[in-house]
């Protein structure tokens, strides 16, 4: 059994979740409450990873993050290291791949907030950013937790995008899903079975948590 691959999956999921929740909250706030030209185009772009086949997304990420791509060459210029086939590379790929899973639940939660609460905050002298931190966020905890859980579990199960951008370098980019695939290919079914069982139990616990939180949210505990 490949404990290192499981550890890398967990590390990748945790880092992706922390970054995405932080970045997505203000983005979802803007998408929920602002009007700007090209908003629907921008939203479609953010949600594109939901419908794109992972290999297609992985291919484009490989192009952009490769040594000749904009992101890859910039990365090399700053760090003097390659972005593709590195842990940092699969983190960036995961951020793109899981972005809609962070944005959509948050946006749904923000949209449920009574607009008069925002108006009340403005009347009481709060700026838009203070309103976000002092009114919107505290009333959206449930949605943010759901968003974090979905990103975590989605990243944990990543295969196609990680394989395209990171390959399968043991101890670096070889995540659990790739290790399971390779174990099956090598006919090491007990290893594959054990790793699959661990991920299955983890995902099941996570889904139960989401259901409990969603139930509480619809009861008004977090809304």
């Amino acid at each position, binding site marked *: 059994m490949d404990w290192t691959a499981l550890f890398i999956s967990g590390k990748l999921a945790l880092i992706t979740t922390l970054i995405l929740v932080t970045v997505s909250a203000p983005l979802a706030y803007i998408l929920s409450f602002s009007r700007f030209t090209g908003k629907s185009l921008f939203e479609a772009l953010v949600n594109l990873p939901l419908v794109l086949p992972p290999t297609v997304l992985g291919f484009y990420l490989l192009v952009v993050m490769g040594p000749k791509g904009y992101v890859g060459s910039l990365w090399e210029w700053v760090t003097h290291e390659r972005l593709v086939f590195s842990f940092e590379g699969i983190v960036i790929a995961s951020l793109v791949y899981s972005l809609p899973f962070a944005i959509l639940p948050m946006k749904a939660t923000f949209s449920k907030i009574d607009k*008069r609460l925002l108006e009340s905050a403005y009347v009481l002298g709060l700026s838009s950013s203070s309103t976000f931190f002092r009114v919107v966020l505290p009333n959206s905890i449930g949605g943010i937790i759901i968003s974090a859980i979905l990103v975590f579990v989605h990243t944990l199960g990543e295969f196609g995008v990680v394989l395209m951008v990171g390959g399968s370098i043991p101890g670096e980019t070889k995540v659990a899903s790739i290790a399971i695939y390779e174990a099956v290919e090598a006919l090491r079914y007990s290893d594959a079975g054990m790793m699959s069982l661990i991920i299955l139990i983890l995902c099941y616990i996570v889904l139960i948590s989401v259901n409990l939180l969603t139930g509480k949210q619809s009861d008004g505990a977090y809304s």
Partner: protein
Amino acid sequence: MALIVDIKKRLPDFDLEMAFTCEDGELNVLIGPSGAGKTTIIRIIAGLVEADEGHISYNDKTWVDTDQGISLPTQKRRLGFVFQDYTLFPHLNVYKNIAFASVDESEVEGLLKLFEIWHLRDSMPHKISGGERQRCAICQNLARHPQVLLLDEPFSALDVAIRRKLREGLKHIKKDLDIPIIHVTHDLSEALFLGDAILPIVRGKVAGEWLRKHVEEVLEDEIRTNKTAREFIRSSTT
């Protein structure tokens, strides 16, 4: 010092045109039927809705001047706005709601005691009654030391006894506040009880004729349904 309002706004069904002045310590009532544009007027004063044309100023400070492209953000107008259905922050208890934007937190206790909700300081908004929530909302706005207070049918969702009590409370603190207060209502008795000036509004414009008819209707209704009123009319006409 006075709040000076002279605004125009094109609405889907009619054009709103309103001009009035409200001095410090004065309470102006905007009264009219539903959909007359009353709430839109105070939302324009608050900066929550933009006026198409016009001018709003307080104490020589221009809040809105469409000719010069001035529109001071809501946050900078330092006003109080009590909404019809008490928009308290659901994640904060009563005390924290009032302290939320208070100028001086040491005043919060006094305000809570003045409005008789000190015992509810640790309660969450969803655990207290409508009347208590509305008192809390008024305290929240007063704690900010507003230059102008806007009240959008603040008592309409409350039962008669609480409404009467809050009206009396508002009348009591009006002079102490010494700021312009704009009070929106469709309740004639409330308007007559509180108002230093009453502006009847129908389809976005001042409509004195509507007020006269409305007073007659209310009186006729009172005479029809109230035995004491009927006897008074009878005794005074014989």
